[in-house]
């Protein structure tokens, strides 16, 4: 299969995934037991107000019309408006995205900084004490919930170093240092479990590469072991790790949401939890759709980048 066809196929698949998700959300919201408008407004609402909310949610029309409207709204990137604030859902989500993305970014950077050296040491010193220590710590990392690490960091680092704020967020355009000091602890909280996963991945990827023929050839040519490791080993071992790191960004989402609550940061997590507590259906369904779209297309993007830097990958076959 040619590369263009492969890209076209992957994009089409991504669109189908989004379509299925959108349909699932549509069905889910319509299967609310009872009247969603009454859930939104509470039991004592006036009939007029109920009718207005039903119209706002599009629930007063036949199902197939509702479905067509829902899909056409999606195509035009119209995700509705929040019942409570009247703001467009999309701008609410984008407005809350900066803290969430910042925490995720710092988390990934911290994780890579820890896991790549740890994984390499672990693989090159296999079964020695360095490997046992690194593997043990990695296991500990994957066994800790991010929000708990956050609380522990607040109690220890937060109280020991008063200059690190333990609450809230400072936008990046108000100063890099202040931004960093606000998100360093949340970033650590999501980054440490992530580092555990990536350390194990780097280790096994590195072990696999160390056994390859070209490594032996390079050593046989008389290159120093360090050079062989750095030049041939790392390059080949880290590609999958970095790719996985990108794809797993999505996995960070749950951790970030919880860590935002710990540190009182007004990000996407706060927004989601608020919108559930208030039964703000347009905001909930809009968030689900927007996140799914970001998710699916980010994976697609990473996949294509990976493919373009790794010529070995074959298009189209998945076994």
């Amino acid at each position, binding site marked *: 299969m040619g590369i263009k066809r492969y890209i076209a196929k992957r994009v089409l698949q991504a669109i189908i995934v989004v379509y299925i998700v959108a349909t699932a*959300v549509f069905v889910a919201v319509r299967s609310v037991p009872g009247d969603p408008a009454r859930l939104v407004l509470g039991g004592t609402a006036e009939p007029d107000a109920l009718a207005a909310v039903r119209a706002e949610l599009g629930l007063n029309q036949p199902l197939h019309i509702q479905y067509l409207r829902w899909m056409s709204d999606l195509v035009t990137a119209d995700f509705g408006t929040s019942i409570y604030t009247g703001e467009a859902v999309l701008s609410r989500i984008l407005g809350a995205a900066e803290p969430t993305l910042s925490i995720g970014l710092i988390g990934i950077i911290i994780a890579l900084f820890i896991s790549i050296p740890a994984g390499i040491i672990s693989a090159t010193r296999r079964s020695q004490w360095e490997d046992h220590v690194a593997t043990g710590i990695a296991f500990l990392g994957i*066994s800790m919930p991010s929000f708990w690490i956050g*609380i522990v960091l607040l109690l220890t680092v937060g109280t020991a170093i008063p200059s690190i704020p333990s609450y809230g967020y400072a936008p990046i355009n108000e100063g890099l240092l202040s931004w960093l000091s606000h998100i360093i602890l949340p970033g650590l909280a999501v980054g440490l479990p992530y580092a555990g996963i990536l350390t194990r991945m780097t280790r096994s990827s590195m072990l696999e590469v160390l056994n390859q023929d070209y490594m032996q050839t390079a050593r046989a040519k008389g290159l120093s072991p360090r050079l062989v490791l750095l030049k041939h080993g790392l390059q080949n071992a880290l590609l999958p790790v970095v790719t996985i790191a990108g794809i797993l960004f999505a996995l960070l989402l749950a951790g970030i949401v919880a860590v935002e609550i710990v540190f009182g940061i007004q990000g996407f997590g706060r927004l989601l939890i608020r919108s559930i507590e208030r039964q703000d259906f347009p905001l909930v369904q809009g968030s689900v759709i927007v996140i799914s779209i970001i998710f699916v297309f980010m994976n697609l993007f990473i996949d294509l980048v990976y493919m373009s830097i790794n010529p070995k990958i074959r298009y189209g076959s998945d076994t």
Partner: protein
Amino acid sequence: MGTEYDNYSPDTENTFFGVRLDRFDRLRETISADRKALFGLITVIGFILAAVLAPELAPFDPMAQEYTIMQPPSLTSAHPLGTDSFGRDLLSRIMFGARISLGVSLGAVFIAAVIGVTLGLVAGYYGGLVDDTIMRFIDVLWAFPWLLVAIMLVAIFGQSVWNVIIAIAFAYIDDFARIIRGEVLSIREEEFVMAAKSIGVDDVNIMIDEVLPNAVAPLIVQFTVLVARAMLAESTLSFLGIGVKPTTPTWGALLGQGRSLIGQAWWISIIPGIAIVITVLGINLFGDALRDTFDVRQRGGS
């Protein structure tokens, strides 16, 4: 993505649900030789005992309130792990919380296993269009952040144990489907499968009797690892207040309730967290020992 796995023997005499008995001997060897594995096994047993026997072993009623609130942990007091802001015994609450953690994570992973294994078996066994369709569906599940499934379920149907179980189960269906499909592809052409086919055994029976037992080992390993992840997922949802009902003492909920009090009473959130970490770590280490024993290779990707 097939794995080389030497247990293709169709004879089931020396097997237990398809796992050769000598592997259990090897598991015992691994565990007695490796302190990490031993720690894992002890933790898993202790956790299950605490959960199952909580009504008998817990020193207090987990809901009983006392006037002396927020007592710090002390080995000499009646409340060794302290009390919370309502004067409830933290040790008893953690023991009862273990029941929820165990029930939710086992339930979720079990449902995911049943659905995932069925999908993977059918996809791998029939191949072709069936395979393509099922695997695209699996891709959709994979691409869907489970937290959002949970949020949608809670927003729509309210908080309940079942919604939490379903939300977490959703996230793991694809893991099981992929594993079992790989195994099926690698043993589909084996002689004993062909033989069963040739004597007219129907497809469902072949899948259940011949194919499935040969894939049990990687499934057990995956099951164990996912139970650990499900426990973390449950605690995250409870912490966020979208898990099991807030009044139920789950580990995540205990931690969440203690969060606003960490200045005055650190133990209310730190101690349930330690319970989570020790248990999840134990299950992970035990799973790793199983992986070594059953010689299941780690797959790339997740």
